[in-house]
């Protein structure tokens, strides 16, 4: 394999910043003296931009995906009781899953929810 091929194989990750320090130095050194690989660098940068634009332009998933995942993972909420405030509180809730109605209790601390207990069996209730 020629030195230029070796360098051109690394150029995509040189642009992305995904090389080791030694690889990065080797690519930079080679680029400073090789017109062909500098051209490849420019082409690769153009390609990267074009590919990103193509992927981003494609429509994303539908809103239904979120609902389907939520139903399978979290179940349908049946009831929830909140006591306390945003800073310190307690929640007790029940949801409807395919084969059970798990009950769970959470401690709410500074806006973060910490699960205290749940009667759901992970993977078994979905």
């Amino acid at each position, binding site marked *: 394999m020629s030195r230029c*091929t070796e360098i*051109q*194989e*690394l150029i*995509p*990750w040189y642009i*992305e*910043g*995904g*090389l080791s320090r030694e690889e990065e130095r080797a690519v930079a050194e080679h680029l400073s003296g090789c017109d062909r690989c500098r051209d490849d660098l420019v*082409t*690769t940068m*153009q*390609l*990267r931009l*074009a*590919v*990103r*634009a*193509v*992927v981003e*332009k*494609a*429509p*994303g*998933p*539908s809103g239904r*995906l*979120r609902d*389907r*995942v939520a139903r*399978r*993972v*979290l179940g349908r909420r049946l009831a929830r009781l909140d006591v306390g405030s945003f800073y310190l509180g307690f929640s007790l809730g029940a949801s409807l899953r395919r084969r059970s109605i798990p009950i*769970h209790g959470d401690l709410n601390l500074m806006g*973060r*929810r*910490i*699960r205290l207990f*749940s009667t*759901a069996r*992970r*993977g078994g209730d*979905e």
Partner: protein
Amino acid sequence: MASDRELITDVANGDEMAFRQLYDRFADRVYRYAYTILRGKHLAEEVAQETMIAVWKGASKYAGRSKVSTWIFGIARNQAYSLVRKEIRTERVPDVALVEPDPAPGIHRQEKVSRALEGLSQDHREVVFLTFYEGLSYGEIASILDIPAGTVKSRMFHAKKRLAEALV
């Protein structure tokens, strides 16, 4: 803002809020990755759905040896390829093109690159996606695809050549 690792630890403890955040960070990316492999919107949604459910169920199995994104894309890939095998048996056809034709001259290059992407093999297309869209290193991609790092570099080299022809 919680890191991906912190979120996955919380998800392993059954934290639904953490799962919602992880979903927001990854569902769209997983969908686009699956789309790159499968070329079908419904199939890509199926993969995204099953991947996110697998993340919820299997968060406690995440060993922390790789980045969370590498782990999740690995799950997505397995889901996508098991669907591909199913599709080959039932001969379902991909439903829409990646980009609909657009008459604006400013995006002429994108159209050409889009067509060139369509023309690449599945193996080459996913390396291009993981490098240029996800910005993963060749080592991380090798770990997701379970192939040697040299193969990742060589696939990218050849894919790049094919795509570059579209820019001429």
